[in-house]
């Protein structure tokens, strides 16, 4: 998984960096003035990986940081990382469509952080799932509560009616008894004057009885109705009671957990301010007990929540019409499936565990020691001085500690010598510096045994390291800081790059500070060679650590305004024009322009040259000859891009000229414009495009070999090929040579008189043609004579 971009919030001066893309070719450079936030970016990325932050990274409002990284993801990658059977189908579909995955680490406090996936689609899916679940639980609970209330009300009414029924039963009985009695009375009073009264009363009683009976009949119907309803609601009622009980238990547990957490935090705070050892031990014990209690409560709460969910979901199904047994069976099955699924947090952790390892390179932390006991290596004693560097060394040479058990000392010595040669040859691929003129350094180790001078270790083996040259044999610590840094760096990076089982991102702050400019180029070379195996992000102020043909690698950092505590802003290459000149100064230094008067594109007199090296040389020649007209040399990134650049200027209606070397591509460009722009008119084409004379493939070929060696290469060596071929055949940087040459000219260390006749002739010829093309005058006294 390759790191594509990152976003940092609330980390030192960075409030919100926004998403910043890393370079596609695995090398990203952070530039900016001091205090711009470059190191903070690296530290934030390290914190993302390790989870560790310290108090001093917090901003004044104490808001917790949040660091997100987006990693490239393809089909084969995610299938290797996640078990697709553990992904809900919809989540799997979303994942299939992603070409990258964003993972964030957010801190809750200084010591606790969590990982989450920041992918919107996935997040929304899980949020939706959680919402639906929550809705289900809430709605079901609501329904249960409603059912409970309904039951209670019905029950109340039913009880009321039941009481009334009993009353009516009594009344009916009494009335029936009264009627019987009245009838008897009536029979007795047939012959006397009370019979009417008796009849009246009987009639009253009979009417009352009828009323009571009718009422009872209605009531009994209602009672049956209510009874049936109650029966219907009974299950729900008991469910609601059960769920409510669990809910209350859950709420209580939540409260307990919160209280315990607060208690724990207080105890931790108390512990941190105690100075007395005895009291500290006692407080520590108390804190540990509280932690255990807190963990227990958290587990109980989790179980209770699960129980609650189970019951509510069963209730939901029962409310839909399922019977209890069936509902319980189905919910159990569903939960088993869901438990098997990843949740967003687990998924985040899995991706995080497969994301690249971020490692911050700390120079001199892995310094090769003068010697180390073999025992310390075998027992992996990490705290022994130089252990890490030795480990890196052994890793690069594929040596296991068992190697040193070789009985035959001659064979062992031979093998060691072979390895020493191999690693030295490999090291020389990167370290081109010599001790003196041609004296290359050799890295080697030897196995020795302690003698009587170290009585406590007599006979025990140790490994001794040397950095030799032709004349001297010195311990690593006796060598210069530059060599030590580079060696430490080389060992770390090489060993780092060998770990292929997981991608790696190396973070380096200001590499090669103590190295000569040329050695800094060697550092860049190491980066270039290792970029296939790992990603590198580094900060720098040095133009020698920037490849001017690959400015897309750069992220420029600066403070938003001049206030000391203003936030950091990060510029990608597309928005460099809004960055300040000071921020972009390494680029300008590299490109040989002065900070204050840097001009690129003007309305007219823009002269397109093939590349940045040509830009430097032309600027230098222009200055050497003493031309002072306003001419703006515009470098294309490569000769193949000259056409695009010219078209761009054409589109912007800006005047331009082109100077090309005498080679096939140059001729093609010439023909292209002659055909498309100048209607095959050679004369018109030559008014705008100049191809250098035959033999001058590149601008540096106009110098005689002698001047090329003296003023550009600064080297005494036999050169029989063209200057440009020599540069190419020796893998030299034209840009660096051109930039250095321009610097010399700007510093007035070189004048026209320092060049021999051959160079001067060529320079005059070229610039004469150039000035003719632009319609400007050559300075007085400068003769133009074509080279023979």
């Amino acid at each position, binding site marked *: 998984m390759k790191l594509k971009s990152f976003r940092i919030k609330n980390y030192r001066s960075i409030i919100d960096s926004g998403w910043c893309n890393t370079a596609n070719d695995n090398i990203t450079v952070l530039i900016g003035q001091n205090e711009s936030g470059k190191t903070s970016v690296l530290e934030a990325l390290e914190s993302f990986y390790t989870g560790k932050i310290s108090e001093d990274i917090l901003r004044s409002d104490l808001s917790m940081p949040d660091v997100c990284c987006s990693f490239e993801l393809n089909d084969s990658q995610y299938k290797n990382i996640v078990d697709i059977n553990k992904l809900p189908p919809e989540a799997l579909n979303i994942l299939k469509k992603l070409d990258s995955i964003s993972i964030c680490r957010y801190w809750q406090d200084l010591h606790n952080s969590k990982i989450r996936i920041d992918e919107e689609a996935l997040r929304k899916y899980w949020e939706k799932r959680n919402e639906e679940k929550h809705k289900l639980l809430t709605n079901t609970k609501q329904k249960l509560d409603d059912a409970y209330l309904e039951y209670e009300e019905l029950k109340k009414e039913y009880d009321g009616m039941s009481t009334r029924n009993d009353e009516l039963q009594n009344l009916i009985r009494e009335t029936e008894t009264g009627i019987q009695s009245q009838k008897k009375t009536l029979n007795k009073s047939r012959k006397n004057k009370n019979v009417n009264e008796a009849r009246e009363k009987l009639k009253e009683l009979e009417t009352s009885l009828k009323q009571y009976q009718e009422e009872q009949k209605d009531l009994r119907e209602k009672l049956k109705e209510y009874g049936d309803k109650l029966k219907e609601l009974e299950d729900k009622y008991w469910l609601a009671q059960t769920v409510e009980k669990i809910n209350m238990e859950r709420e209580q547990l939540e409260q307990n957990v919160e209280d315990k957490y607060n208690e724990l935090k207080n105890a931790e705070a108390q512990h941190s301010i105690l100075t007395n050892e005895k009291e500290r031990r006692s407080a520590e014990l108390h804190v540990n007990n509280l932690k255990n209690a807190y963990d227990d409560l958290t587990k109980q709460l989790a179980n209770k929540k699960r129980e609650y969910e189970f019951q509510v979901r069963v209730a939901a199904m029962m409310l839909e019409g399922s019977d209890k047994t069936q509902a319980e069976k189905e919910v159990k099955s569903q939960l088993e499936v869901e438990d098997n699924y990843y949740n967003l947090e687990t998924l985040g952790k899995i991706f995080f565990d497969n994301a690249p390892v971020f490692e911050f390179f700390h120079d001199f932390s892995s310094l090769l020691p003068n010697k180390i006991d073999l025992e310390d290596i075998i027992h992996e004693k990490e705290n022994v001085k130089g252990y890490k560097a030795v480990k890196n060394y052994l890793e690069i040479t594929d040596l296991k500690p068992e190697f040193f058990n070789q009985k035959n000392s001659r064979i062992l010595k031979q093998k060691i010598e072979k390895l020493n040669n191999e690693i030295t040859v490999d090291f020389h691929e990167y370290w081109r510096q010599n001790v003196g*003129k*041609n004296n290359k350094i050799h890295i080697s180790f030897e196995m020795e045994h302690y003698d009587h001078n170290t009585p406590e270790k007599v006979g025990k083996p140790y490994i001794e390291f040397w950095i030799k040259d032709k004349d001297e044999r010195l311990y690593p610590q006796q060598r210069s800081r530059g060599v030590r840094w580079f060696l430490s760096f080389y060992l770390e990076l090489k060993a780092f790059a060998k770990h292929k089982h997981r991608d790696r991102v190396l973070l380096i702050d200001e590499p090669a500070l103590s190295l000569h400019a040329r050695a800094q180029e060697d550092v860049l070379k190491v980066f270039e060679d290792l970029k296939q195996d790992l990603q590198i992000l580094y900060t720098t102020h040095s133009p020698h650590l920037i490849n001017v043909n690959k400015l897309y690698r750069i992220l420029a950092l600066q403070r938003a305004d001049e206030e000391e505590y203003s936030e950091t802003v990060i510029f990608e290459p597309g928005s460099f024009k809004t960055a300040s000149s000071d921020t972009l100064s390494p680029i300008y230094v590299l490109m040989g322009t002065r900070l204050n008067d840097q001009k690129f594109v003007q309305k007219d007199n823009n002269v397109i040259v093939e590349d940045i090296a040509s830009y430097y040389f032309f600027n230098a020649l222009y200055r050497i000859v003493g031309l002072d007209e306003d001419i703006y040399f515009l470098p294309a990134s490569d000769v193949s891009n000259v056409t695009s650049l010219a078209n761009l200027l054409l589109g912007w209606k800006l005047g331009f000229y082109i100077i090309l070397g005498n080679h096939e591509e140059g001729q093609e460009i010439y023909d292209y414009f002659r055909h498309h722009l100048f209607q095959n008119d050679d004369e018109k084409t030559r008014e705008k495009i100049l191809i250098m004379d035959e033999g001058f493939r590149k601008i540096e070929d106009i110098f*005689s*070999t*002698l001047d090329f*060696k*003296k003023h550009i290469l600064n*080297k*005494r*060596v*036999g*050169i*029989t090929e063209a200057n440009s071929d020599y540069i190419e055949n020796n893998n030299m940087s034209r840009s660096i040579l051109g930039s250095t040459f321009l610097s010399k000219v700007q510093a007035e260390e070189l004048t026209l008189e320092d060049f*021999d*006749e*051959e160079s001067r002739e060529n320079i005059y010829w070229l610039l004469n043609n150039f000035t003719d093309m632009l319609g400007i005058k050559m300075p007085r006294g400068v003769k133009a004579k074509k080279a*023979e």
Partner: protein
Amino acid sequence: MSQEEIRSSEEEYLKKLVERQQKALNESLEYAQYIQRVLFPDKDQMNRMFPDNFIFFSPRDMVSGDFYWLRQVREKIVLAVGDCTGHGVPGAFMSILGITFLNEITNRDPLPKANRILNSMRERIMKTLNQTGDKKELKDGMDIALFVYNQKTKELQFSGAKNPLYHFHNGTLNELRGDRMPIGVYALFESSFTNHTIKIEPGDRVYLFTDGFVDQLGGSEFKKFKFKNFRKLLTDIQPHELSEQKSILDHKFTEWKGNFEQVDDVLVIGVNF
């Protein structure tokens, strides 16, 4: 056999061995000489380009560290006389390099200027011998005098690495000095050889030579012949035809040398325009 007889027999054996080895060496050197001479321009070629000329060539050994070389490119004729470090076999090897490089450098149209030919030669020597100016390096190389003569314009360009060119016009000597640096690395950072240009009139004579003649020890006081005497000698023989001048030089050299050993290879070329 007596001890004396044994000794005598051993001596005889060793003598024959040495003789055999000497013979083999001589044969080898003869062949080397043959190869070297084949690389030099032949008489016909020289006569075609300069009908009136002489070449006084006296190598010290069978093979020579001195060489001469001739080429025509269109209307221009290039003549070079070189003196390589050492004489004998090592010098001969260097001379082969010199001839090869001259062939390479002049194999282009238009022909480079005389000084640029020497500049290019120096680069090739430095590259071939891996010279970078380090104090511990062997400073092998060659001294050379070279001119490019344009038959049309009658202009002669001269450039010399230590060795001069003597130009006689109406019997008067005009010396064109070579630069004080060899074809090869030396103490200072390399700079361009000087290109001298003169106009040639009909009847003018030009001499190119190595330092073998002037460095020859001899005379009554066992001294070097010296440039001063050489200049005087050439001036004195101007009234003579070139063919006679060669004989005179030969005679004078032999006379001066006397019984002393020849110190170095000797090469003097004279041309009449």
